[in-house]
């Protein structure tokens, strides 16, 4: 459905994207993650045909969106800006885009969408009077009014309250499952990405650092982690010294009154505990830590920084 091959974009001498490649299959929800300035929005703009690549290809349904007007009917876009006109009503905004996309039965579709985003009673109000969250919901309705096959969403739930965020998540999942809509989701919200994306790519400094399913990524970066609590600071420092000399300890960090120990092998958890107890340390509590996507993401980004 979407194919990005060796995509490179330079603005004058500055390289924003460098040889980015990935594929998104039909019906997939693809999360595109990365810190600010990583090149996420540039990738999206290249895919949408708003920018021209310096090298490589960004194809949507086998073609460049910038060249094919008719193909853009299949695309729904929610960018950083809401793309709404503040001086006209919510209804007029939706009606305007519906007309541009040649939507038939506009009245019914607009009414249904206004109901979905719970803004039916405000449909005749000017958008300029709406809160940020209301505008974002209306923008989402605008994005799907023409029933697109592919959605490009840039931080879709930014500025929304938790209830609305849930509504957006459920809507994206439903569109993907029931209508086989392909979704490319740019987001900083790792919890959201973890909940809805089938696959993610992590971009940093213009290059893809990871591209896999959420579970596989967590698995790849999932070195076993054990957290222990000790009785006092003296024991804590002693334990840190002892742990740093062990070959099967990849990393150990002080965390409040405890230590977070990253091991090189899963079966070394009991070994390290026995070792510390054997050295006369009083371990008050120990637990195995499950790593979240956030941990994986931060590890990839930090790894990059430490390599420089």
């Amino acid at each position, binding site marked *: 459905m979407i194919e990005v091959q060796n995509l490179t974009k330079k603005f004058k001498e500055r390289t924003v994207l460098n040889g980015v490649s990935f594929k998104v299959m039909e019906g997939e929800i693809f999360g595109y993650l990365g810190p600010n300035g990583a090149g996420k929005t540039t990738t999206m703009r290249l895919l949408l045909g*708003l920018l021209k690549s310096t090298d490589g290809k960004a194809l949507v349904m086998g073609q460049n969106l910038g060249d094919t007007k008719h193909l853009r009917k299949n695309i729904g*876009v929610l960018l950083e*800006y809401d*793309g709404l006109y503040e001086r*006209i009503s919510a209804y007029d905004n939706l009606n305007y*885009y519906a*007309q*541009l*996309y040649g939507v038939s039965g506009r009245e019914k579709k607009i009414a249904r969408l206004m109901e979905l985003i719970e803004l039916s009673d405000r449909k005749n109000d000017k958008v300029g009077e709406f809160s940020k969250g209301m505008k974002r919901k209306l923008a989402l309705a605008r994005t799907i009014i023409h029933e697109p096959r592919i959605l490009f969403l840039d931080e879709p739930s930014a500025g929304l309250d938790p209830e609305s965020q849930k509504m957006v998540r459920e809507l994206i999942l439903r569109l993907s499952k029931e209508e086989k809509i392909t979704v490319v989701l740019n987001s900083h919200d790792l919890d959201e990405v973890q909940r809805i994306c089938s696959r993610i790519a992590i971009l940093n400094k213009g290059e893809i650092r990871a591209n896999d399913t959420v579970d596989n990524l967590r698995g790849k970066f999932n070195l076993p982690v054990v957290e222990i609590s000790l009785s006092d600071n003296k024991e804590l420092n002693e334990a840190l010294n002892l742990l740093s000399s062990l070959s099967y300890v990849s990393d150990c960090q002080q965390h409040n009154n405890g230590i977070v120990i990253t091991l090189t092998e899963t079966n070394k958890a009991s070994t390290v505990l026995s070792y510390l107890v054997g050295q006369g340390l009083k371990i008050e509590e120990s637990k195995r830590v499950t790593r979240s996507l956030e941990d994986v993401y931060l590890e990839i980004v930090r790894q990059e920084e430490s390599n420089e």
Partner: protein
Amino acid sequence: MNSILVIARKEIKELFGNRYTLILGAAFALFFSIIRSLAIIKEMESSIVATSLDSTLFYLSASIGFFMAYISASQIFLREKVNGVIETLLCAPISLRQIWFGKVLGITGFAYMFSLFTVVIILLVSGILSGLFILPGAIVIAHVLLVVPTFIAALTGLIGFAQFLLGMRENRILNFVLFMPAFIALYGIGLSASNSFKIRWEYIAILFISSMLLLAITTYLTKHLSKERIVATIA
């Protein structure tokens, strides 16, 4: 064509939704119409009144139209770049030229209404105050109905093209260096020549052809306007 009309209708609706622009336009049109009407009725001879009325209608309808187009273009072209709405519009199944032309059409329609409003006010005020209702000559009628909208469209097209093409800073400079002085010059020349200036068919023909030419050139230039250029100059 349908998409162009959809855009034009939306722009007119949006401009009418802007109270500030409406009040400014109406105040501007009323002020200059009344001032000029008072000057016209000072003339004693009806033939001079007719000449003065024609020349006033000739330049004021165009000047007010230009002024409103200038104000509206900033509301439409520039504002969409500032708030990033243009990016969403560029993803719709319409060409950049259609977007540009739809906006030009909408702004022209809106600005032209103020030109017509100016004409009506001048005719009414001068007629009521002098007790002498003089209808404008055929040249002025042709000018108001045909040349003025073309003239407004040509200038709107040029302003819109420049606002799409240039960054915010360059646009600000262009406003002060080119468009504001152009408007002041247009009004000033018209004002100074209004009593002695006799309108001829050749003049409106030249203005019409020049406007058409400018519109054609700008339409051609939009072919070279890229989405990348617009996106890269978003504030």
